[in-house]
């Protein structure tokens, strides 16, 4: 039987079949071993054959009614497409790029949302402080008992002082690190970010509430003349940790704002665009929370002097600020 006996689409297939089968073998290899481990000639053939196959698919859709062939080409081209357009980045480069460029640039781009985050927290602190001074029983409304740790308006000044300058820490090392990382504040940060998508309100409320807790807590100590001591106790990790919550809140707000005010885009597109920076803010907040947990779990027990605590806490805060404002600037 000669070639001419065949109908056009069967001839079309006969001429190209060998190339498709080679492509199939190459795709299987690329999926098993990865493109990086293939030889130059193989990788080049993979790309070239993939483009030929997608042309074949386009032609076959027009000229062939063979369903078996169409399904095969469809699947083969899709499979080849997936392995040709695989991500080709190296992990080391990713981390460097994130810390030197991506993160600080994203922080600067979304400064407004972060400012709103800090504003929510600040308002909360102010409100909590004022409310406590007006009536100390607000303290029990704001602070859940497990967070208050037995401290309250009824405890004596000496008790409060003992918690701040704790000479005998109960847990230390890894245990302390883990417990503090999974303490109240980390949970708040995750909630604040994750709930931001749901129209901003939960993120704002939670941040404000966190501020209320902080304000009432501070007012309790300030009333007994322990304000400065508490400031030292808090700032050693709090500068980092509270900033992290505010940044997470900024990220959440960015997502919520995209859903609320998508502008000319569809909501889906707006969310997609907002996600680029919001994810980086979340990662920055995570890094800061880990740092804060280290400081709280280790640093707070080691450093007992008030001035040193202030210096350490705010010094680290300045380092963060320098990273955000100076990092990743490109020279004009």
């Amino acid at each position, binding site marked *: 039987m000669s070639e001419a006996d*065949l*109908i*056009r*689409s*069967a001839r079309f*297939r*006969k001429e190209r*079949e060998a190339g*498709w089968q080679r492509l199939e073998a190459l795709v299987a290899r690329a999926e098993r071993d*990865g493109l990086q481990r293939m030889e130059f000639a193989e990788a080049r053939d993979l790309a070239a054959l993939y483009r030929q196959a*997608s*042309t074949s*698919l*386009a032609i076959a859709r*027009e*000229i*062939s*009614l*063979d*369903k*078996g*062939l169409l*399904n*095969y080409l*469809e*699947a*083969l*081209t*899709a*499979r080849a*497409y*997936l*392995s040709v*357009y*695989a*991500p080709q980045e190296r992990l080391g480069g*990713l981390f460097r790029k994130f810390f030197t460029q991506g993160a600080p640039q994203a922080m600067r781009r979304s400064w407004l949302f972060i400012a709103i985050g800090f504003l929510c927290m600040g308002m909360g602190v102010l409100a909590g402080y004022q409310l406590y001074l007006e009536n100390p029983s607000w303290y029990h409304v704001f602070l859940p008992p497990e967070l208050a740790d037995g401290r309250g308006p009824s405890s004596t000044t000496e008790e409060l002082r003992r918690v701040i300058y704790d000479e005998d820490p109960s*847990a230390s*090392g*890894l*245990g*302390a690190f*883990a*417990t503090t*990382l*999974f303490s109240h504040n980390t949970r708040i940060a*995750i909630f604040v*970010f*994750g*709930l931001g*998508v*749901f129209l901003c309100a939960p993120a704002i409320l939670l941040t404000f509430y966190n501020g209320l807790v902080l304000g009432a807590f501070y007012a309790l100590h300030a009333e007994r003349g322990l304000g400065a001591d508490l400031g030292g106790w808090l700032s050693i990790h709090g500068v980092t940790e509270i900033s992290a919550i505010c940044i997470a809140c900024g990220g959440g707000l960015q*997502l919520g704002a995209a859903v609320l005010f998508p502008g000319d885009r569809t909501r*889906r597109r707006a969310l*997609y665009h*907002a*996600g680029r920076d919001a*994810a980086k803010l*979340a*990662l920055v907040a995570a890094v800061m929370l880990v740092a804060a947990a280290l400081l709280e779990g280790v640093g707070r027990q080691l450093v007992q002097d008030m001035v040193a605590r202030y210096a350490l806490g705010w010094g680290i805060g300045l380092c963060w600020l320098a990273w955000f404002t100076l990092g990743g600037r490109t020279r004009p």
Partner: protein
Amino acid sequence: MKLRWRKNSRATPPAGELVPPEGVPLKLEVAGLGVRLAAQITDVILTLVAAVCLLILVASLGFSAPETLMAIGSLMFFIIRVPYYVLAELAWNGQTVGKRLMKIKVISHDGKSLSTHALVLRNLMKEAEIFLPATLLLTLDAATPLASGLALGWIAAGLMVPLCNRYRQRLGDLMAGTHVIHQPVPVLLQDLAGNPAPRTSRKEGFVFLAHQLDHYGAFELQTLETLLRAQEASAERGRDLKQGATIEAVVEKIRQKIGYANKVPAAQRLEFLRAFYNAQRAHLEQRQLFGEKRKDKHYTAKDAPS
């Protein structure tokens, strides 16, 4: 501000179609929630086992007091889980171990390659969408009705998102611009027209005239193709598919429809169908080249582009 329902006037492509940079649209079937849940459970079990192993190691080395063991355990689970998803999907081009088992894959919605950013984002959102509500669900109690209600509402909202869009994207997918597909499997079947049944001689073959081939369209042709392939597959496996009656009915129906006068002997029925398939396909493909696409037998001359 005008508040009105925005109607999407643009025709949306059917779900499961993706346009790669080459511009030839590909069909990639969107994976359902069941399959994705199965993959997710596999991954959770894997990471949980790894976390427990690490925890036992830490505990046996005496680094921890018993009362902080729970906190350390959840820390281990967390620090294994988060990088696992991102790194696995980066290294295996959108697949974790669970996804490999279920033969599904994450792809970028816009047809370009998956970016690191997209993978990091969709897996970070997984924390907020799946793991946080799940831990909440485990710690729910009746003493705090407000918190329980909030948690349930959150879980419900998270579940509604993938159910409400065609690509079954969860929130993280929406933000990252990705969706999950079934991995296609290419199987090259024999060309029915490329390898016709051996004929004893030229004149014994079945001959069809042009007007006899004008009755059917592509749909009927491909149905016939399916039937013939099933016959072939059963013959290859050495099992006779008891379809003599079906084949006879098909042959008779076709003969009636196209007005084929000669009787077809029982032994040659399959051969007749193959010959008819070849002739019909050649005819339809030729018509198609001239711009006359016959979708099915209900085609009329009015449908033809003038």
